[in-house]
């Protein structure tokens, strides 16, 4: 147990309240402490970020090293190149490492190929100006000489012929001779992608039009949905433009390195292993939590706030094994939400409930821009500050969020209310604390006790099953261990 880790700062954004209104962070409250993830899981690899003042230079060095090994001979000096990015990368460890990768890609491509027409195209989730904000705040507009834009799924599209028929991509993603897929191995929405083809997913999501994204979330089913991205990536059109991929190699505790490859599927297998092994342990550990108060305290929409690399949406489903593909529906995913009837109960009895361990949610700081009423409807939720409550009332995706939540003036009062009403003192804070997690001392004790058994269970029993279900060659495990 250590003293609390400084959480990720509140960020100025049109999707969240003014950072000045975030008066207190949950980690500053009495009886809070932190756990180092490498203390919980000693087999987690060493990280290059966070790691002292020069850490960001090390990310750049790792990116350059990795990019030097990639074949870029297909890019001629007179060609145009789109470096494709996604919003989520900017939410990892403060966002700087991802911005640094995007800068390094531009530099190495220019140096190796002589190409001068290198642009940044950054897709989003549901907050259409989110990457515009990041492009400015990380100086990417100047770095890319004004050739950096944010793209939204309602922007002009193009049809792409695939093995399952026509799907639609964003025109400006593909308006260059070559595309470079700049991403990371962080797992984020395991409830959606179930760690199947996660490295390919942006082709069906942040690089895609609404028709494609709706195909994923409504047409194919909770697991088959993941084929949407592969269908697009496999298309002749995308293949004719794909140059290579460059990923931040991320764990729940930090940036391990950079992994670049001309073969996205090879990279995908490595990402699958990382997602199942490194993150699978934390998620399985979170499934061991019997009762808690969850505090949201991070500059992201409600489901995306992080603790130890796990997002709140996944914690709401930690009562089932999200990686086990035999279970069709996690406790929370949009297909699950769709299958709740008018009586607010699941249409089918075998749909698992929202994680019953979460007795109350204190929403100290989280953004709008993602439909979140399902959470406040099914988990008693307290929102700190009337301004934040008002912001949700104005969001077209959250008109009902405050119908099921209450607002309380201060974090201290909200926590007092939560302690009194639930009668428990185990707290888990989703504040993006880097390298570890901020929790109450009582929660720390529980997690320290459970971690060794969880680690063994994942290594011995769960990981081989998870990899097999995904068709990943288990020998990759040995190679990565070397």
């Amino acid at each position, binding site marked *: 147990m250590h003293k609390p880790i400084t959480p990720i700062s509140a960020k100025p954004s049109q999707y969240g309240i003014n950072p000045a209104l975030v008066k207190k962070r949950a980690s500053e409250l009495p009886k809070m402490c932190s756990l180092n993830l490498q203390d919980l899981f000693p087999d987690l690899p060493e990280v290059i970020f966070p790691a002292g003042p020069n850490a960001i230079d090390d990310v750049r060095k790792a990116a350059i090293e990795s990019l030097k090994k990639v074949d870029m001979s297909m890019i001629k000096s007179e060609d145009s190149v789109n470096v494709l990015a996604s919003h989520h990368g900017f939410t990892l460890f403060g966002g700087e490492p991802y911005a640094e990768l995007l800068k390094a890609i531009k530099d190495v491509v220019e140096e190796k190929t002589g190409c001068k027409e290198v642009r940044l195209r950054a897709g989003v989730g*549901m907050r*259409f*100006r989110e990457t515009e904000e990041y492009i400015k705040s990380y100086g990417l507009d100047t770095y890319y000489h004004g050739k950096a834009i944010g793209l*939204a*799924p*309602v*922007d*002009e*599209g193009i*049809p792409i012929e695939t093995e*399952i*028929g*026509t*799907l*639609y991509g964003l025109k400006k993603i593909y308006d260059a001779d070559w595309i470079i897929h700049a991403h990371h191995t962080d797992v984020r929405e395991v409830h959606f992608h*179930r760690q*199947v083809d996660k490295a390919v997913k942006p082709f069906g999501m942040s690089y895609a039009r*609404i*028709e494609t*994204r*709706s*195909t994923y979330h*409504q*047409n*194919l*089913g*909770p*697991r*088959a*949905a*993941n*084929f949407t991205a*592969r*269908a697009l990536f496999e298309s002749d059109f995308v293949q004719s433009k794909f140059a290579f991929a460059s990923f931040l190699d991320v764990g729940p505790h930090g940036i391990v390195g950079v992994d670049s490859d001309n073969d996205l599927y090879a990279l995908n297998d490595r990402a699958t292993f990382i997602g199942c092994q490194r993150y699978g342990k934390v998620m399985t550990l979170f499934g061991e939590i019997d009762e808690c108060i969850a505090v949201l305290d991070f500059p992201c929409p409600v489901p995306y706030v992080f603790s130890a690399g796990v997002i709140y949406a996944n914690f709401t489903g930690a009562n089932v094994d999200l990686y086990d*593909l035999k279970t*069709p*529906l996690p406790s929370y995913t*949009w297909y699950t939400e*769709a*299958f*709740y*009837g*008018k*009586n607010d*109960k699941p*249409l*089918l*009895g*075998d749909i698992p409930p929202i994680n019953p361990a979460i007795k109350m949610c204190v929403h100290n700081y989280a953004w709008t821009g993602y*439909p979140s*009423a*399902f959470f406040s409807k099914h988990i008693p939720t307290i929102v700190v500050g009337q301004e934040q409550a008002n912001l949700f009332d*104005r969001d*077209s*995706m*959250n*008109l*009902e969020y405050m119908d099921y939540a209450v607002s309380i003036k201060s974090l201290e009062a909200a926590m007092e209310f939560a302690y009194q009403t639930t009668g428990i003192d185990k707290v888990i804070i989703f504040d993006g604390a880097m390298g570890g997690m901020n929790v109450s001392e009582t929660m720390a004790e529980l997690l320290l006790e459970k971690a060794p058994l969880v680690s063994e269970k994942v290594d011995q029993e769960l990981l081989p099953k998870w990899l097999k*279900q995904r*068709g990943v060659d288990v020998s990759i495990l040995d190679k990565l261990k070397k």
Partner: protein
Amino acid sequence: MKQVTLLAKVDQDKCIGCKICTKVCPVLSISVVNRKAVVNEDDCRACGNCEQRCPSHAIEMVPREKPLKVYVDVTKFDQGKISEICEKAHFNPEQVLCYCTGVRADEVAAAILDGAKTPEAVSLMTGIRTGCTIECVQPVLRMLEAAGCELKPNEGGWQWYGTTATAWTVPKEVKEKYSTRGFYFEEDRELLDDIAKLNVEEKGGKNRDA
């Protein structure tokens, strides 16, 4: 059902007449007249797309003087016909189609029975497609198609381009080719069928394995 509390308001001085707002409005409630955008206030469903995509930041979402409640009362329509459209589109009538507004399949069917023939009309009547404006476009297209409506995208608009693959159209060869990669095509189709076919009266507590 959607409670429409806001309204798009154009700052005419900032508007450059680029028409992007007209291409992204899911209910076609904004047009450009004399090179300036004009909002049809009755029709605006406050999705915010125009405000989010305007390159000149000329649009602001402001509170409506009188909030609107848009919804179609499903009890006023023939339940048999509602079920028929839903079933053909492979949805349970109680299934939520729009995660932002909570609009369910039966309300969309009722809107169609009430005369809606396009996604824009369905959205005007129910509020569906006016939250995130992303995820529910395919269900709306599927429902209209199931009801026999001809789907024609708006010329020059980016509102929607067309229907795409569903669990029922994925070719057998594709399922076989990728069978080892964890997509569970058949099992997921069965799950969707189970949900769609579930009799609303009997629902709840019923296990698929039972």
